[in-house]
């Protein structure tokens, strides 16, 4: 027995040492790439075909190969989206792109560590507009001004290009793609639409009445919110601007009090499972809910799988207008980028019209540039695209940006809005008391980070002040 244990132990030791010696990393990656190409059933075949063509092209005198480009991204992190990035969106790039999905904290730590060490592996960064400021402040990002002309020629709106400057004369990111949050409705719900209401131009009151009518007629609560998902964006970018015209400055105004009363009232018709929802596409597909608000990328499967059963609708309006939150994703390069040419080529590639359309079709993020939606873009996605444009182009639209300038503490502002929600709506605490207490926390956060106001709040000198 003992001898056997000894044997097993030495064997493990030896194996461990052997394994340590036998880790040739480049080979590892090549192997796994082969694996991916066998994954998606229909797509694979196309991939193999194009591969053959590529090899023939290589014979011609000008072979372009940008080599290995490491691309870290806080977007397209879910397994399916990451697979689409690797298998479809990035497959025609003349080089080998390593797509590395990462959560925000890991992403920031990794880039900072590489910049501090003075050398790194990452060449391209994809992240939200609100996720770059810490890196900008640390001097971790390159000036990409020489790529601006290309972006403008392709029709990127100036407003978005301006966002990438963070108030400086340098271009820290090139706009890559955008998303937003909209409503999705099962067509069965149309029978219960309040009288005189236009589903494409609802008010929040009508939206509540819609859910109320369904509840009264069927006995089921068919309205859903992703409480365990991105609910904080609903509060920050939709209901607050719609009712108060602001996000931070109007946190505890009398209009805000009215708004919370409305949310509490609406919550009577919200499906109790909402507390556990992260992605609304799932309960929509299972018909657990008929009406839902969520991020376009988190609704897309509903529209893709059953485009004839669902409607994509712009968000409702409130007394102050139609608050909505555009999400801007940018591409940047760290100062330590090992593959400068490859990185720039990848940015150029990802902002090409045909690649932007593929991105929309595969992962549900909308183009940054002017594109004509071709016929082959699935009906469901076109539906979403139309709702997105209608929302942004509404005459009473109030665009609200994701929090800017809070750096690593940008998670804390979300917690304040979520806490206010939990205390007021779930725990039934007194609205004014809660708003007063949470407003203090909000003010402390603004003072400590010194973050000036961002839209929809009017610009401020110094830290943003809660009224």
């Amino acid at each position, binding site marked *: 027995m003992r001898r056997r244990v000894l044997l097993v132990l030495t064997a493990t030791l030896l194996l461990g040492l052997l394994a340590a010696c036998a880790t040739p990393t480049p080979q*590892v990656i090549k192997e796994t790439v082969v694996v991916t190409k066998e994954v998606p059933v229909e797509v694979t075949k196309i991939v193999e075909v194009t591969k053959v063509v590529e090899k023939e092209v290589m014979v011609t005198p000008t072979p372009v190969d940008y080599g290995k480009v490491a691309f870290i991204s806080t977007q397209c992190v879910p397994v399916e989206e990451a697979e689409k990035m690797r298998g479809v969106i990035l497959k025609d790039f003349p080089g080998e792109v390593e797509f590395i999905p990462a959560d925000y904290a890991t992403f920031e730590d990794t880039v900072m560590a590489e910049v501090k060490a003075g050398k790194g592996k990452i060449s391209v960064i994809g992240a939200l507009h609100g996720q770059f400021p810490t890196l900008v402040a640390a001097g971790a990002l390159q000036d990409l001004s020489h790529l601006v002309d290309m972006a403008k020629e392709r029709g990127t709106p100036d407003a978005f290009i301006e966002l990438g400057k963070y108030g400086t004369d340098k271009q820290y990111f090139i706009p890559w793609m955008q998303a937003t949050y909209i409503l999705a409705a099962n067509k069965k719900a149309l029978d219960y639409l309040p009288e005189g209401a236009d589903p494409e131009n609802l008010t929040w009151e009508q939206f509540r009445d819609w859910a109320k009518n369904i509840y009264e007629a069927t006995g089921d609560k068919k309205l859903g919110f992703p409480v365990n998902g991105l609910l904080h964006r609903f509060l920050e970018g939709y209901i607050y601007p719609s009712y108060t015209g602001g996000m931070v400055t109007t946190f505890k105004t009398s209009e805000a009090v009215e708004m919370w009363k409305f949310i509490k009232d609406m919550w009577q018709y919200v499906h109790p499972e909402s507390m556990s929802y992260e992605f609304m596409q799932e309960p929509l597909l299972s018909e657990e809910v008929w009406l839902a608000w969520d991020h376009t990328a988190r609704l897309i499967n509903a529209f893709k799988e059953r485009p004839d059963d669902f409607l994509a609708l712009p968000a409702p309006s409130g007394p102050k207008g139609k608050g909505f939150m555009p999400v801007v994703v940018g591409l940047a390069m760290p100062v330590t980028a090992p593959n400068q040419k490859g990185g720039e080529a990848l940015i150029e590639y990802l902002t090409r019209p045909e690649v932007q359309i593929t991105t929309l079709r595969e992962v549900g993020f909308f183009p940054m540039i002017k594109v004509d939606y071709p016929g082959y873009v699935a009906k469901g996605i076109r539906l979403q695209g139309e709702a997105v444009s209608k929302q942004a182009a509404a005459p009473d639209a109030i665009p609200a940006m994701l929090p800017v300038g809070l750096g690593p503490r940008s998670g804390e502002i979300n917690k304040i809005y979520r806490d206010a929600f939990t205390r007021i709506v779930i725990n039934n605490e007194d609205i004014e008391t809660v708003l007063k207490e949470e407003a203090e926390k909000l003010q402390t956060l603004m003072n400590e980070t010194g973050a000036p106001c961002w839209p929809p709040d009017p610009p401020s000198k110094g830290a943003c002040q809660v009224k």
Partner: protein
Amino acid sequence: MRRLAPPPRLVGRGTMYLMALLIALWILIPIYLITMAAFSPKDVIYSWPKSLMPQSFSLETLLFFLNAYGVLASVRNSVIVALLTLALSLVVGAPAGYALARFIFRGKDVYRLMILSTRAFPIVILSIPLAVAFIRWNLYDTVISVALVHTAMALPTTILVTSSVFIGVSKELEEAAMVLGCNRLQAFTKVALPLALPGLAASAIFTFVLSWNEVFAATILTLYNRTLPAHLFVQLAASPLPFRFAGGFFILVPAIVFMFFVRRYLFNLWGITLK
């Protein structure tokens, strides 16, 4: 046993079995639900109301997950890292444990305390400096770097566990071996080590499981060469339900299989004999 079951013996034993049953269910029910969901097609997972019995069988999500980029590579990385950690921590930790068990030296208690105090540094605050140092040493994004950090994390437990294992091996036996002609080293390798092996194996298991489950260091120190938990941590946090179940099932199974093989040694460490 008698101590645990006071006078109204039937009731006592009944309650004990009931508690045992509850604890077992506490662990088994989630495992059951995860397993069932991992083998269900997507629409069953989304359906409402949900059922506690398996509705239909499908390998769809599991296969997609298995074939997804990086999963198999990360499994291999995880195994390599865990084995390396196991080897390194035993090579460094067992002699330290032996020294603590056998020798009386000045500052022994302080030394013991210092070993434990290394656990007091949260790895979160060390992450960026560690990554920077590893990049400079060209160790960044290698399985060795992760194994080194895991070894540092595992050493305190390894040292303390092995020291108590060696205390359990009678010193007289080693002395007797030396009287009969062994030198110090031979006495250790021929007498003390074989007797301590089950205990050492148990401590190795702890190390293995620690490394297998560790997420944070693995996420920060790697880019391409992720271990399985690091890979899952990043990808599953934002993935739809079916993939989470598949991923949960996938990380659960090796741990359970491993436990089945090694429970004999675990019990050994706790002083329970399994006949």
